[in-house]
């Protein structure tokens, strides 16, 4: 009891004083997850929108697969990327295993299906209401997809933030492909796992507090965005 209280107090001190090591880990985490979300968004949103507005053979199977991949276990993604990037793997020559780049790749693979599936769902609903009008105006699949992405731009922010939350809070993939190397690939989640097993509770707790605060802040932003849009566009 007193140990955990002491740990809490120490954790707050680290956060409040902006402990150098803590800040370094937090900044690296944010940079990696921001990078992976950028890549994933650019891939997933056009893809999800196109799946929603086009009719093609195997559409239902594609949607079911995409929805299933939302729950992709992060350790499995980590393992696959590890095999891909390890010396003997197909992309081993790049020599990027155990670098932040590998972590960006792994997180992007993890969240792309999530973003694509959620985008597909949101655009699909809007497509029901706008399909006839867009076809009447002569919009093809590409133009329709882009128009609806723009039309739902504020709601899509929520999806991006959800993806960011998933990316920054996962452990398995970044642990495997990053290696949790101090000062190079150590991010919040891997640090928490390591420090906890080492018994350094204050740093683990401090990072936990920051991680919680980030996830909370993302949700607040998502909520406020939604409200602002409701007010402006009805």
């Amino acid at each position, binding site marked *: 009891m007193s140990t955990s209280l002491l740990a809490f107090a120490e954790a707050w001190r680290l956060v409040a004083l902006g402990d150098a090591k803590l800040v370094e880990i937090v900044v690296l985490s944010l940079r990696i997850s921001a990078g992976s979300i950028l890549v994933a968004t650019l891939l997933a949103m056009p893809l999800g929108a196109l799946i929603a507005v086009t009719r093609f053979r195997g559409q239902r199977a594609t949607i079911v697969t995409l929805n299933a991949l939302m729950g992709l276990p992060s350790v499995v993604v980590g393992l696959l990327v590890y095999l891909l990037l390890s010396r003997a793997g197909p992309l081993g020559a790049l020599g990027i295993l155990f670098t932040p780049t590998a972590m960006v790749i792994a997180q992007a693979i993890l969240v792309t299906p999530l973003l694509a599936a959620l985008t597909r769902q949101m655009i699909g609903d809007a497509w029901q209401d*706008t399909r*006839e009008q867009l076809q*009447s*105006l*002569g919009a093809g699949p590409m133009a329709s997809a882009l128009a609806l992405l*723009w*039309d*739902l*731009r504020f709601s899509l922010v929520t999806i991006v933030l959800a993806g960011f939350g998933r990316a920054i809070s996962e452990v398995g993939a970044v642990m495997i492909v990053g290696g949790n190397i101090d000062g190079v690939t150590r991010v919040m989640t891997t640090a928490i796992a390591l420090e906890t097993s080492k018994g350094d509770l204050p740093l683990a707790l401090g990072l936990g507090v920051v991680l919680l605060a980030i996830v909370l802040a993302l949700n607040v932003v998502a909520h406020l965005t939604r409200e602002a849009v409701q007010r402006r*566009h009805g």
Partner: protein
Amino acid sequence: MAERSTRDLAPALLPLSLVDVGWIAGGKTVLSGVTATLEHGLRSVILGANGAGKSVLLRLCHGLLQPTSGEVRWNMPEVRGEPRRQAMVFQRPVLFRRSVLGNMTFALGLAGVASVERRDRALAALERVGLAAFAERPARVLSGGEQQRLALARAWSLQPEVLFLDEPTANLDPGATREIEAVIQAIHAAGTKIVLVTHNLGQAQRLGDEVLFLDRGRLVERTPIDRFFYRPDSAEAAAYLKGELPWH
């Protein structure tokens, strides 16, 4: 500029020939054996009871649905991927989360209008329907009547040869309905063929030159507007009018 001059030279879309057109969905016959030719000039009103197939007929003409039998044949069909030369206004206006002006320029962009021309053409069309002052407002916070006028302005700005209207005033109060009817008259006066589906018989009389009357998926008569209301050719139309205008 080049595209506009080619459009002026392009052969006319009309007349539109419906040849034995049928449409079946889920085993239910919605339309069958509809044969008619729609010419330039006359304002055509499609009347009929609920479920008679009016909206489906309009969508078949506009190409939003494909007939399951028969043929929808334009004099000079549109080319897929090229700007459309016909437009449609729906019962519930579909507007995007952009400004009033943004909704206009979006449609003009799809119609292949050069970006430098879009703004002027959009503002001119908004002016004609009395919405110029609202150009910068978000489109979806306009009132129902204003939204429908915007949808009409959007269609009008495309300078379509044919405008299909599917119960454009069904959700509007009498004041807004009058404004919409005035815009439809103006579009007609500017040379666009009007094809209107309505449940409002007063509106049919005010806006129509001829009636195409549908009964349970069949085109049972086609009559000039005055004759339709006083001496319809078919027993089905007479029964419909008796139901709609009991004092008749």
